[in-house]
């Protein structure tokens, strides 16, 4: 059993488990699955700066901060004790494309040539991490949710604006991965 857990989990195990987070949160306390809101709570708690968007009682939303604290802990547990340490197997086409940008590390979930402290100040890493992170934070709040709030919770509740948001998430991702990323990775 433990050997099976240590192998990468297939989609038909992971997807339904993630789907079950929706009723779990609803039944544990009428909470709606949505993660990006915690970024707003962090702003409200630490740097409200008299901006109306951050003037609310963030302590009433503290469950969301416990939730992401759990995600962080779960990530640690999975990496420390539940991993077989094998390299991530990736599609051959992706591997050869990435080789052309000198990205060959597949030992980690994120390639070390981009996601490591020693590469942070290279131009391409800086753009991907800092600009990318900014777009994630700005975009999710502008859209009013992320993959969890719109794509999973919103679609589960049959909300068509969430479908619009999800289609736009995917469109942005396709443009970045296929059109813009080759330029950035070549920097």
């Amino acid at each position: 059993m433990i050997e099976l857990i240590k192998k990468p989990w297939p989609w038909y195990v992971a997807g339904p488990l993630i789907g079950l987070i929706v009723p779990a949160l609803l039944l544990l306390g009428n909470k709606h699955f949505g993660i990006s809101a915690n970024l707003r709570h962090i702003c409200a708690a630490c740097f409200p700066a008299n901006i109306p968007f951050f003037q609310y009682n963030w302590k009433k939303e503290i469950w969301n901060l416990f939730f992401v604290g759990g995600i962080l802990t779960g990530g640690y547990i999975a990496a420390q004790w539940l991993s077989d340490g094998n390299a991530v197997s990736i599609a051959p086409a992706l591997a050869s494309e990435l080789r052309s940008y000198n990205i060959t590390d597949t030992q980690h979930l994120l390639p070390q040539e981009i996601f490591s402290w020693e590469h942070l100040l290279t131009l391409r890493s800086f753009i991907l991490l800092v600009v990318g992170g900014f777009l994630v934070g700005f975009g999710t709040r502008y859209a009013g949710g992320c993959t969890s709030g719109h794509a999973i919770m919103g679609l589960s509740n049959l909300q068509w604006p969430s479908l619009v948001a999800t289609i736009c998430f995917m469109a942005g991702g396709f443009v970045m991965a296929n059109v813009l990323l080759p330029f950035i990775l070549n920097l």
Partner: protein
Amino acid sequence: MSDKITDYEVQSSESSMPVNTSTMHNLRYALVGIVFGIVFVRAEIVSWFRIQEMFRLQSFHMYGVIGSAVLVGMISVWLIKKSGVKAIDGMPVTFQPKKFHKGQIFGGLMFGLGWAMTGACPGPLFAQIGSGVTVVLVVLLSAVAGTWMYGYLKEKLPH
């Protein structure tokens, strides 16, 4: 424009229902988060490579994950509405309809660009940091800065 129209993830500002902020109560959400974090890492959903494959149509994995998650979520929400079941504290389970606004397009596209760059949506960010890729703290701080900037510019942006 009130937050009600643009942001559905701050529930407490929309209802007068009492909220339990005690640590003991909220630990249950931490437990759900731990399970979620383990799934994220073991199914490699937090992997930059899996996200690249998704946006290049090189692998079915992420489509399978998101598709089956939505299906299970949909059936669950339908069952909860149909049965009228209450939360374990006896609190009614409520749903708010979402209204369309342009932010779902502009913000959605921006998030999509960032998703393909960082390989992470906001949940996986925390799992990536937990799994030991500490440099992702920089991505998280940047995402907080982005959220702050949105709050700062909100009234000037088309919605």
